[in-house]
């Protein structure tokens, strides 16, 4: 495209998909509207009996929950039972706390068949309370309509680096949609996943002799003719005197453990605007080649908050693959010192 200015700019804007961008904003507005509708209804219903001192909407992204918090002060006292009813959907959770003393007044709220109610006779006029109401967000595309998350698919692999760094960033697509009449919408713990390649580290560290042993055992377990089986048995006997004989399954079990979240997270650091949340085996297409058992990548989940005050976040995921390789070497009892001595004597012989 070769564009100058004026009319051409307009053409380029169209080509850029400004039309698409407008559609994207519309979609984001609809997504936000669907969650603030309930909050706005709560505010309207409560306005008669309460002075509204503040409102906040937070989207708890991992759980797909919208949490609406409203600071309110009852206008009058009620001796006889009286409730304010909200009948526009049953919340997942509802709580009311007295700010002074942070007392949770569980008997002042009740979930009903089609919503909830707040019992006014349980509250004191002039006292400040915070009401928290949580609803589930059903639209799975909600977050994608609001946030641009660009995942680093790969990083340059240079052999001399012990730490590989993956850069992460998340930014709001349409900032203005988060701005509501009396409050702003906050997105908490927006998730960001990075697949870090681990296959090369495993492959280069597994000793050749162990691999040979496994291959022999695997071949032996298959249906073969007598003479073939005999040859395999002889080979297996030769390998019996080797280091890993008889320990194959134990070794594989120990290797498996390295890929569990508890162990693997030790090799990962998340820095700057993001924080570490979870890790699991990779699920990309090459991870299933040919069986989804041993992972070629590990998926690291990090999280960050986005709101009007912080519309974009960036961070770094540092993977210490040198440490991971060391752990694999421990599984195979590979002595680092003897490795270094062998390397040194090779250099000397050169």
């Amino acid at each position, binding site marked *: 495209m070769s*564009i*100058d200015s004026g009319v051409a*700019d307009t053409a*380029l*804007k169209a080509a*850029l*998909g400004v039309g698409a*961008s407008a559609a994207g904003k519309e979609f984001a507005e609809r997504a936000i509207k669907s969650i603030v509708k309930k909050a706005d209804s709560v505010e309207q219903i409560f306005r008669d009996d309460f002075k509204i001192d503040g409102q906040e909407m937070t989207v708890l992204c*991992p*759980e*797909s929950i919208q949490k609406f918090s409203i600071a309110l002060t009852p206008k009058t006292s009620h001796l006889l039972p009286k409730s304010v009813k909200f009948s526009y959907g049953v919340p997942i959770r509802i709580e009311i706390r007295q700010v002074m003393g942070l007392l949770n007044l569980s008997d002042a709220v009740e979930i009903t068949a089609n919503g909830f109610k707040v019992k006014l006779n349980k509250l004191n006029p002039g006292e400040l309370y915070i009401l928290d109401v949580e609803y589930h967000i059903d639209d*799975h*595309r*909600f*977050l994608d309509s609001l946030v*641009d998350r*660009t995942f*680093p*698919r*790969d*990083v*340059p*692999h*240079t052999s001399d680096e012990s730490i590989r760094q993956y*850069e992460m*960033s998340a*930014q*709001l*697509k*349409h*900032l203005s949609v988060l701005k509501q009449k009396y409050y702003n919408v906050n997105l908490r713990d927006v998730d960001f*996943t990075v*697949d870090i390649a681990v*296959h*090369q580290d495993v492959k*280069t560290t597994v000793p050749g002799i162990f*691999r040979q042993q*496994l291959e022999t055992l*695997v*071949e032996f*377990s298959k249906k073969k003719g007598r003479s*073939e089986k005999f040859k*395999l048995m*002889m080979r297996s006997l030769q390998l019996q005197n080797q280091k890993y004989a008889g320990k*194959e399954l134990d070794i*594989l079990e120990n290797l498996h453990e390295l890929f569990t979240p508890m162990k693997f997270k030790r090799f990962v650091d998340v820095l700057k605007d993001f924080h570490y949340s979870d890790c*699991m085996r990779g*699920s990309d*297409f*090459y991870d*299933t*080649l*040919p*069986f989804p*058992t*041993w992972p070629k990548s590990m998926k690291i*989940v990090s999280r960050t908050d986005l709101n009007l005050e912080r*519309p*974009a976040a*960036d961070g770094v995921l540092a993977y210490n693959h040198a440490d991971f390789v060391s752990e694999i070497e421990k599984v195979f009892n590979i002595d680092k010192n003897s490795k270094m001595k062998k390397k040194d004597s090779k250099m000397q012989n050169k």
Partner: protein
Amino acid sequence: MILNRLFVPSNCLQGGELPIHLLWSRDKILKIHIEIPKSFEILRINNGEDFQIQENCIINVSKFEENGFLGMILKTPQLPQPSIDETIIFEIIDSNGERQVEKRYVHLFRPLIKVISVPNQMMVKKESNQECLVNNRILINNEGEGIAVIGFKVLEDSQLKIVEPKGTEQFAKSFWSDWSLELEEIKSMYPDHATLINNLVLLGTSHPQLDASGMKKVKEVFEQLRNELMNDLVFAEDFIKSSVVAYMKNLHIITELESFVTYLKSIESNRIILDNPIGVLKIGREQKKFKAELTTVDLGYNSYPPIPIELKLSAEDDCEVPIHKILAVVQNNMVIK
């Protein structure tokens, strides 16, 4: 300094998306001028209300939906060079005439598979320990910095075809059959995800080729899978459990040992992963032609021009040669595998 933060990634896989964002105090009124390489494409500008683009590479923004933030997503090109540094220049001017100029360098990289040599003929010997020994292997190297997933697309007129060894084929069929059943139950529990599940099963049972059209389908399904797993953790847990159940059911067919061996076989040295490493060529005494294309895909689902491979193979005795045995990776003039 006018800006509080300027983020530009220092590297990007060629063909991938590059996110940029600028943050500044809301009390500052700014004009922002950005020069990007001509080969980059502007996918989205976030929070820019009034912007102009000149010559496809100069972006001027002077009005914002909400002051304090400008974001954009650019698309990087796939280039002839496997690695290159490109420059993005930012000029920010505030209402007092104060100026800040920033240059950021982005390292664009990708894999580059080179076939160093293809022998005319290949002879396979079976050693006394039953191991297949192949002389004159196809020598390849990855001269780029990115990971390559390679595979063989066998041509119609090839006399030799790649087949699955018997046990594995049985496992794969049985695994997918059992997992499809588990996934039917998941579908009924999570009807919102039915389309994804149907697409995944279709993909798993059809094993698409690693060419542009095959990868397009793979990319669509796995990006959908990624999004839906991320956005619905309850579904994710049940989904993952179902694959473990299917795997465990079929463990008698393929042992843990074999799966690890297969895993190792699929990883070549030098940032190369081999698609379908357990595929075999059934070779006999009679020399037969193997005609295929070596396909390459990177981790961003970008595919690269296939490389034609043609050679003749024979063996001293009938044998099945795993496909990974006919390849050798070379680095610094040394065979490293």
